[in-house]
């Protein structure tokens, strides 16, 4: 019962933040290289490959968030296995083919120097690694390990939300300089998530 309420809250929060992220993505429609985040990527937008990778990242990554609504549901996984499998493949293909490789390119060009660049590059590599592991264990039908790696992969996906949420909270509380904030959340945004993921995995292991 308690976990059901917690789950409900999580899904509600996820719905709200997915909506905000959708708004952020929609700022680039119709596409303009002078909109929002791109306005301060003056040198990068001149590179021939930057904008294509940027578009791929912005317009595909949003769909990965939606996996949270279905893929962790026991009901869907057991009763409608084909839905779980179909959406799972979609998640993996979008992530490995589009979102993560483009994310690595953007991470390499991140604002804020090596502090934030390294944060985003490590995030990207871990994202790919955990997702591939999750796929491997699914193919081997090792469901526990599949689940654990998917929890990690999705925790990293959620950094899209947590990075921005941390930024909001940090600015609201301390008003630091803009790029200092960015360097901090580049790390916090996914490190906190992966710690929470490990705690969840650990608890599930003990429960069994």
């Amino acid at each position, binding site marked *: 019962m308690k976990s059901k309420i917690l789950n409900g809250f999580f899904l509600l929060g996820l719905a709200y933040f997915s909506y905000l992220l959708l708004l952020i993505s929609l700022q680039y429609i119709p596409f303009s290289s002078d909109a929002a*985040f791109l306005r301060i990527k003056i040198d990068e937008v001149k590179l021939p490959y930057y904008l294509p990778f940027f578009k791929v990242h912005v317009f595909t990554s949003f769909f990965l968030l939606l996996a949270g609504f279905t893929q962790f549901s026991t009901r869907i996984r057991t009763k409608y296995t084909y839905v779980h499998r179909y959406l799972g493949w979609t998640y993996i293909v979008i992530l490995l083919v589009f979102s993560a490789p483009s994310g690595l390119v953007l991470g390499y060009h991140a604002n804020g120097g090596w502090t934030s660049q390294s944060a985003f590059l490590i995030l990207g590599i871990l994202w790919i690694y955990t997702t591939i592991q999750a796929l491997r264990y699914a193919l081997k039908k090792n469901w526990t390990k599949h689940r654990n790696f998917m929890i990690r992969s999705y925790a990293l996906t959620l950094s899209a939300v947590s990075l921005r949420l941390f930024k*909001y909270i940090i600015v609201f509380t301390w008003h630091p300089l*803009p790029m200092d904030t960015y360097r901090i959340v580049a790390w916090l945004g996914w490190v906190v998530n992966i710690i929470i993921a490990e705690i969840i995995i650990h608890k599930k292991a003990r429960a069994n």
Partner: protein
Amino acid sequence: MKNLVLLSIVFLGACTSAIKDSKSEKDEPASESVELMGEYRPEPTENLVIHAKEDLIGYWVGWFVPDVEDSLREYKATGEWLRWDGSNKINVSIDSFIEDSVFGHSVVANNYQTFKGIIKSDKNGFSAIVYEPGADKHDGMFEFEIPSNDSILKGTWEAYKDLKTKFRRYSLSKRIFKYDASNMLSGGYVDWEKFKVPDWIAGDTIDLPGEPDLIMTKEELANNMDMDVSEINDDNYQDLFDEFVKWEREYYSEYFATTGQLNDLNSSARLLTQAEVENLTKADLYVLRNSIYARHGYSFRKRQLRAYFDKQDWYIPVHANIKSDLTEIEKKNIQLLLKYEEHAEEYYDEFGRG
């Protein structure tokens, strides 16, 4: 179905306030193409000590101080330890002579005004009484003297009309104005007073049928706009009020203070890089951009900016309009700084990345 998708996109587009602050207008000086209408530049002699009448020609620069008893003096807080006593930096330019007549102009607080009068000389030096035309509310008469073999122009000014500050005094030194891209900024820039933005500024003004938006009395508005109450009438009230609201909106921000980074950067001497500006506060960006205009001698109307640039030793108010001869470096830096200012304005404290 297609319509529904379209409708929802339009709907979502309208709700961006959750991720983005609305942009307020920028209080830029008039566009670069503005001609310097009727502004005169004298050809000064290089002599800063006065030996002959010709040596008087040029810019005389210093503080234009309200001449009131200390007990009646009004101060405005300019930060935690600073206060502004109503003094502005003035440039009294002596332009030419025809026999006993002297012609010139003054620039102060974005006000360019000509004057003419009579100059006398005796063994002690020069003394003059000069008059501004009188059409403008701020016009008045200057009375000053310059001892010979000295380098100070000292005197008083009296407004024709009953302004809030009717009398002023000054003690000016002759300065040669030369554009110098290498001039740096010293000191920090802070808000006058930290105050919460009142609801009537945060929200829309209220429209009462048949009445102007008299939410603020004319006296209050005059005080805030640094004007005399007699200058405000029903015709210009709304425009001035709107201007005030615009300034306040732009100005009110808890974080509107510069950082030490400001004093290490120069926005005229070379192209600024993204790495240099990305960690600046909105106030840093704003002051850096306006420092470009200051180096060209722009006389600021906005009181906060004026008080800040007046304190820079190198600064001389020369023009009431922005000069058209900004360098290519400056034009590019202005573009860059504006982009970051807009970005800071829209995204700094919102849910989002940058």
